[in-house]
């Protein structure tokens, strides 16, 4: 066990825990934001540098501070470590710089993008970004690519977090896409625009922190904040079948995996559940999904007793009918 202090709050965590994980255990406002780190994907993190923190005391044995800011998703804690996140102006300044770099080539097409409203980069930019860009040169331009029948890729929006590549590596057996070219010219691509047809390829959409990979069956259907998120499940042979439905009226517009409060998928779901089961009768509705009240999606979203009661009553009525 190691005792670590983050922004003055202490916690005992097992050895090998990263600073980011320890910060998430404490929770609250002092959790560093993360774009490329995904708790369910091994070896993710370390690319985007948004989660950098200052280690003001290395450990009890060696109290010297670390010479540079470190990425908290890749740095493991040591006993007696003291970390500064929001309390250090140096970190905030550096993070602003990182956000500015991420936004250099990111187009300002949030009004068009389907990810708007649940985009991590939007949140990050709002909290840490400058209102204006200092970059005068034209942004990178790519054509949209259809990868497979269900996924559309906007390379212009990509921030090179590698999450989708890791998904393909770790939960599917045959990866057909990856990063090609180097540095400023790098892009996610499939070789010769090969279709991604794996059964779990849809999870790429969920892990994408921006709107680079979007669901073609949901494309421009509705803004996220006009849909009602519901927890639902069905018997699926391939996956757990536990999903979040995004409804409008009685129509299921989109099916996604359930995301935890850090916006990371809890369980992977298969393409059949995600793209083909768009009828509300395919699903057993559990109740309204919990949405953070700071999110724009919480607009007109009621998870209160009445909504739950309605579903309860419907269940009981169904049981009565079944008995008869």
């Amino acid at each position: 066990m190691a005792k670590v202090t983050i922004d003055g709050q202490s916690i005992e965590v097992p050895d090998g825990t990263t600073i980011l994980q320890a910060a998430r255990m404490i929770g609250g406002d002092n959790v560093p934001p993360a774009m490329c780190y995904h708790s369910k994907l091994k070896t993710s993190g370390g690319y985007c540098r948004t989660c950098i923190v200052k280690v003001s005391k290395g450990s009890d044995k060696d109290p010297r501070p670390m010479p540079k800011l470190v990425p908290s998703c890749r740095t493991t804690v040591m006993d007696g470590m003291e970390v500064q996140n929001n309390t250090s102006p140096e970190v905030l300044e550096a993070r602003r710089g990182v956000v500015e770099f991420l936004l250099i080539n990111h187009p300002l097409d949030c009004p068009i993008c389907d990810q708007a409203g649940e985009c991590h980069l939007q949140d990050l930019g709002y909290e840490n970004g400058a209102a204006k860009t200092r970059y005068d040169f034209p942004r990178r331009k790519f054509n949209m690519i259809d990868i497979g029948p269900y996924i559309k890729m906007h390379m212009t929006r990509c921030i090179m977090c590698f999450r989708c590549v890791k998904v393909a590596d770790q939960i599917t057996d045959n990866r057909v896409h990856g990063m090609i070219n180097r540095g400023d010219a790098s892009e996610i691509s499939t070789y010769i625009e090969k279709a991604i047809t794996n059964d779990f390829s849809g999870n790429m959409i969920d892990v994408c922190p921006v709107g680079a990979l979007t669901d073609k069956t949901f494309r421009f259907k509705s803004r996220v904040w006009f849909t009602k998120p519901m927890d639902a499940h069905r018997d699926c042979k391939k996956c757990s079948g536990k999903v979040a439905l995004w409804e409008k009226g009685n129509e299921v517009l989109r099916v996604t995996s359930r995301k935890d409060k850090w916006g990371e998928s809890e369980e992977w779901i298969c393409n059949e559940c995600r793209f083909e089961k768009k009828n509300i009768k395919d699903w057993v509705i559990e109740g309204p999904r919990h949405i953070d009240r700071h999110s724009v999606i919480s607009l007109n979203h009621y998870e209160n007793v009445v909504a739950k009661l309605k579903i309860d009553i419907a269940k009981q009525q169904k049981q009565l009918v079944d008995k008869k």
Partner: protein
Amino acid sequence: MQPLTNRSKVVVKKEMSLYEKIYLPAIISGMMITFSHFFRKKPTIQYPEQKREFSGTYRGQHVLKRDEIGAERCTACGLCAVACPAEAITMIAGERKKGEEKLYREEKYAVNYEINMLRCIFCGDCEDACPKEAIFLTDRMVKPENNRGSFFYGKDILVEGVEKEKRIDISRRQTAEVLEFKKHKEFDHNR
């Protein structure tokens, strides 16, 4: 009958005097009031021919603007609908096809855009929310209609014409101060 409250008054039918009986003085005094109104300034105007001067910040019927080449600016982002306190705005988005670049400015556009003018309170929040400078409130009045259904204004009424003479001038409300203020994106209001 017993009165229910003390407030009720019993009407007494009094015998009229001779002066009251001939009625003429009462009629003349009444007509005096009527005739005196002929010589007063009229508070009404003949509306369609004559128009009152509007305040510079008058907010009337909405317009969906086109850009310089005549493409629709609206991209159906839904921010006006979120900002609308009366929930008067609804829209359905669609994807622009190849060859429609001159019709729609962005990759996505509003296939349907409807404002319920009975719900609208003309607060102008939609205008403030619009990131594409597409929707504006103008100094035009919303026309009276015979039935409720006609107040659902679709794109046929809201979108301005392509031709120069059919463009709707919105510069009246956009005073120099407003334009200067909108430049400052660092203000909370303009974010």
